[in-house]
């Protein structure tokens, strides 16, 4: 049962990752600081998931990136592209609608006694 719950939990989180990353990249970040920023908001993402996701979103035209020096180090900075911003707006609408629906469904929810 724990494994089943863990699978559902991961699926639930996975669905939110793109939305979270696009939202956070309205301000520029490089991989490491993005991960930290998300973790600080309570959305810890495994590095092995986040960095390939950034690449994929960039190849899909939703992010733009550039190598730049900061603190004497070259880092790749990502930010959301105009297309990415449009997708983010639509995803946010969808998220709010889902959230409202679930809120309605769960308004009178009480945990079942087992």
């Amino acid at each position: 049962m724990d494994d089943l719950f863990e699978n559902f939990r991961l699926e639930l989180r996975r669905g939110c990752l793109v939305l979270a990353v696009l939202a956070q990249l309205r301000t520029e970040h490089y991989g490491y600081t993005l991960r930290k920023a998300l973790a600080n908001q309570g959305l810890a993402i495994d590095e092995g998931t986040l960095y390939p996701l950034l690449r994929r979103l960039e190849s899909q035209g939703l992010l733009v990136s550039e190598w730049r020096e900061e603190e004497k180090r070259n880092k790749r900075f990502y930010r959301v592209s105009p297309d990415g911003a449009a997708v983010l707006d639509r995803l946010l609408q969808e998220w709010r609608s889902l959230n409202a629906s679930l809120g309605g469904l769960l308004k009178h929810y009480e945990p079942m006694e087992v």
Partner: protein
Amino acid sequence: MKPVGLLERYLQAVKPLLPRKAQDDILRELSENIRCRMDEREADLGRPLSAAEQEEIIKEHGHPVVVAARYGRTQYLIGPAVFPFYWLILRIAVVGALIVRLVVEVVMALLSPDPAHAILPALLAVPSVLIPVFFWVTAVFAAFELCSSFFTWKWKNCWSPSSLPVVGTHSPAVSRAESVAQILFGAAFIVWWQAVPHAPFLLLGPAASIIAPAPIWTDLHWPILLLIAAGVAQACVDLARPQQTKWRAKIRLAIQAAGLIVLCLVLRAGVWVVMAPGVQDPARFSGVVEVLNQILFYCFLVGLIIESVRFIWRCLRQFQAHTAIHAAALARD
């Protein structure tokens, strides 16, 4: 001390597994991100990291194979959309191949000079057919998966509600699994059928040194090939547009009728295997050839009866469907 040694070893392990074009860029970014994490940890601790601490950070990043795989485009050989068809066909192919191989091995063992000793090795050889079946079915479906984005696009975009059948006038859809199975087995049969004249071993197995196909198979080579090709073409159309239509049912009946004619011609031949040229002791094997021809006669006869019954049954169903549609049209008017 900076963790250059461990990190570089890690990056070196990841590198060959990455997509070639983006290899250097990905490694550069990975390296920077891991270094940032280490720097921050050092700043928190106020001292350089120990080897164990460096190792812990690198290990948390993930196994090189897993990390590299996540940068790859495809993470699976056969995806969830194609997998149900793959699984169905694999099961059919495995069971079919086992039965065919079992029959062939048992018949060959019984025909051998010492059946009692030949039967056990023959039975032990049966499971070996599973490896090529698994390989070929998986290879075909993996290739299909590679092209599936194209097919999915076609299915999603090339349709219009007005092209769908009118309510109440259509027969049930042809099963996609049935169509896929017909395409795969039909294609495999065509390849095999084309190869048989050059390699009778493919048809007769080890018995090819004793017996050979009779001339009837040469005469009917192209009709049989065209018949199977027509079936494959029909299945392709069914796969793209699974809804049965009046014309499709008629075309299927026509193909089945052609199949019956070919089967009649095969049955009429009377001889389906002959002694292979150059057999050293023809008298010894003439009985085997005769028995085989008798067995084949009954097989083709039973096949012809079953196919005829199926054909008549389909004709009747087609007639009933036609009558029902006609009656529905009259009732509407």
